[in-house]
């Protein structure tokens, strides 16, 4: 049977690799190329490269930069950051990326998903959904600083599934970078109703927590800080815990 995946995240901001904390404070951790190569050498299950500055920069995606990153990578790769046209997605996939990840575009260009799915197949189109818990309303809501849209999370993801996405990455924004543990309740609420794989990201701090996310219903977990910083002084050290024995 298929093995759950432990995905290594490489978060990039203006060509520098960083970790984030609650999507606000950022710590420089090194050269993205070196980090991608290191994860690849660790034989990671998958690498998720996310460029957080791409949408805000509003400049064309730098294909040369992505190409350089991919050339060092032998693992399956998903890339996200500022993708909002069919052409961009085509060019990125042609470089050797298995899956394109859409975040802001899922909110401002929803027609892009069926177009991408029609051309590349659902397995190549991933939605990244950032989620926070609204304690006043007592429910999970979308978090997106660019658009400010606050829809119901469950309805939104179901619409994305109908539009043709192959996989959804959910990020608990308040747990991002905190290593405070994953939101198992969120996984347990979302996973059963979804026919597609669900990837959980946010707050994981141990191999046991990765296992508990899988037990709660996630098909995969994605970690950034857990694989990049080591206690007690948060020194930068790229490590990896996988779920598959690559022999």
């Amino acid at each position, binding site marked *: *049977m*298929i093995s759950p995946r432990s995905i290594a995240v490489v978060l990039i901001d203006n060509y520098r690799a960083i970790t984030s904390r609650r999507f606000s404070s950022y710590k420089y951790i090194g050269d993205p190329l070196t980090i991608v190569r290191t994860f690849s050498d660790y034989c990671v299950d998958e690498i998720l490269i996310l460029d957080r500055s791409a949408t805000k920069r509003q400049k064309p995606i730098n294909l040369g930069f992505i190409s350089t990153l991919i050339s060092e990578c*032998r693992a*399956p790769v998903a890339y996200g950051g500022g993708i909002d046209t069919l052409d961009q997605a085509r060019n990125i996939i042609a470089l*050797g990326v298995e899956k394109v990840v859409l975040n802001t575009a899922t909110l401002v260009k929803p027609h892009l998903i069926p177009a991408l799915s*029609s051309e590349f*197949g659902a397995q190549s189109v991933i939605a990244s959904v950032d989620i926070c818990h609204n304690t006043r309303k007592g429910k999970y809501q979308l978090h997106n600083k660019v658009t400010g849209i606050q829809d119901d999370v469950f309805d939104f993801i179901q619409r994305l599934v109908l539009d043709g996405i192959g996989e959804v990455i959910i990020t608990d924004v308040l747990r991002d970078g905190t290593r405070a543990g994953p939101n198992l309740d969120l996984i347990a609420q979302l996973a059963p109703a979804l*026919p597609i*794989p669900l990837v959980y990201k946010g707050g994981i701090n141990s191999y046991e927590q990765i296992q508990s996310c899988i037990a709660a219903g996630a098909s995969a977990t994605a970690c950034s800080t857990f694989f990049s910083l080591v206690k007690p002084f948060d020194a930068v050290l790229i490590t990896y815990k996988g779920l598959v024995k690559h022999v």
Partner: protein
Amino acid sequence: MKSICILDYGVGNKGSLFRILESLGCTVKITRNISELCSSSRVILPGVGRHDVAMNNIKSLQLDEAIESIYSSGIPLLGICVGMQLLFDRSEEGHFISPGLGLIPGDVTHLSSSVDSSLRVPHIGWNKVIAPTHHHAFPDELHNRYFYFAHSYMCSPIDSDSIIAITPYGVNICAAVARDNIYGVQFHPEKSHAAGMDFLSNFVFSSI
């Protein structure tokens, strides 16, 4: 040494495949030129994308004739993922039934019509590939190892003898096929770390 040719038909993950084959010591060309293809030692049909889009590209570039020539010449041809699905008679993927190259009799159908509804589709991730048949394209050293899959459709060859490896996902998904000099794998060997490298190395260097 003769070249390995990666067929360039406008879709597919050529970059990764190119780098992996080069690292194995091969001379690799990405081409759609018939004479280059027919003078190579191996031809690989890469695949990311949809069956109908891929077939449209192949037909508009008249590469279906080139592939027929490769088949007649006896040069080993390997289809990867969608590249494997193109080898069959037809696929459900697309707005209408999408005809394939017809080199391996059988159909390509959506996973949801075969696997249990409790299992998620697409089939994405690392799954064990079982190949107890000791076929030369999938020897013992590859049996029971994990390979990377990312697909929503599966192949069903009419001749079960052409199935040389399966992967369990509710049902036994056809993971590898072989018929004459035509081979296909549903997984991505170029993304499957050591197991994938060993598969490609065997395909390129063993006499098959």
